């Protein structure tokens, strides 16, 4: 293409490593988990996989997952 265009391509981390924004990190206690998938469904970032692993690279630590967890299986832990 002769002309340079301001085309933006889909990128994971388009705004950088957003995990760095985090103050508290969600920690899932698999023993308490009842597999309701609330955390997966309500995560604004899509950083919790259906297999219930958290992508800490990009999780911003909002805490919705912990708040919406009916079995209190997710704890927000202060980042060291």
């Amino acid at each position, binding site marked *: *293409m*002769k002309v340079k*265009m*301001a*085309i*933006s*391509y889909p990128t994971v981390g388009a705004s950088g490593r957003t995990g760095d924004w985090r103050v508290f990190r969600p920690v899932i206690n698999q023993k308490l988990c009842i597999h309701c998938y609330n955390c997966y469904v309500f995560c604004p970032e899509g950083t919790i996989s259906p297999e219930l692993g958290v992508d800490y690279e990009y999780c911003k630590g909002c805490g919705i997952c912990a708040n919406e967890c009916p079995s209190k299986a997710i704890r927000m832990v202060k980042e060291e």
Partner: protein
Amino acid sequence: MMAECVEEEETSVYVTGCEAAARAVIIAKPSVVAAYPITPQTEIVEKLSLFIGEGRHDCQFIAVESEHSALSACIGAASCGARTFTATSSHGLLYMAEMLYWAAIARLPIVMANANRALASGWNIWADHIDSLSQRDAGWIQFYTSTVQEVYDTILIAFRVAENEGVMLPVMVNLDGFLLTHINQPLRLVDETLYQEEFLDEINVPHALNLDSPHTLGTLISPSDNYRVQHDRKLGMERAKDVIKEAERDFLRLFGREYHPVMEYRSDDAEVLLLGMGTLAKEAEDAVDMMRFRGIKAGLLRLRQIRPFPDDEIIDAISRSPAEKLVIIDRDYSPGSGGILSQEVKTRLYDAGIVKEIVNVIAGVGGQDVSAEDMMEMVELERGEHWWGI
């Protein structure tokens, strides 16, 4: 009597500037036309909806609710790779202003006809170049036409210039309100097949949205990247200079009508040069002939485009003529500064180190009736700015 009922295929017709514009658009086969009515452009929209409604051409006509939306719809369609056209005038153009810049920065080859008209307050529907000149920095290529034939031909040329892969910029074809939009003149039609096969390629917007490899157009952009994008738009505009000339050459070869960025009329040996745009500059040909008849060696330069500004052509034409006096007629005015066309020309003269006696005449503004006889008097004026008839 039966024979009379069968229309022979016409090669020339007698139509208004608006109809000529609509006829040209249909030949270029856009797939989307979005427009909003405004005097004196309305007939273009009406004729286009008629032609599309008659099934002369398969095209979506979007009857939008405002000019801002007209251009927005064109931007939406062009971003998906469609050939688009819109038309407007005056307040409509200014209502579009935000999207004018948008279209140019997004590098979308939209073609638009603008019927030059004055701006309110005090409703005035007559010819004035201030609407389009106020948007000259928007990044659109701007043509100014002077006959019904030229309106038609220039729109045909515009699509090719806009869609050139090195240019990818929107083009505005200006025609003087009423003086061209509503005047009827003979119009020679082009051979549609020849145009479609030899002159205008299929449209290809390289950055068009697609499902196969999704991308986003128009995200936030950092100052340094924005700077680069703007610089590239400048390069596109510069490439347009040659692309326009090449298109005009091909147009001459295929259709036999000659256009140049600067149309010279008896200027080679002129002792006084008139300079202008649009219908005023066409009528000035009459003034030149009459002055020559009276023994005054007058000549004329008519600018067909103000963006990209034809620097080389204008300097070449001025330096080739022995004229010491340059009478620049502006159908526009920048309050607190002066005639816009005159400033544009003076800048180039300064850069080229040429000193002339420049007479800047503000005439025809707001549709003021200015004749060839008036122009004969304009050459008598002295250096500086003059408001004709005040």
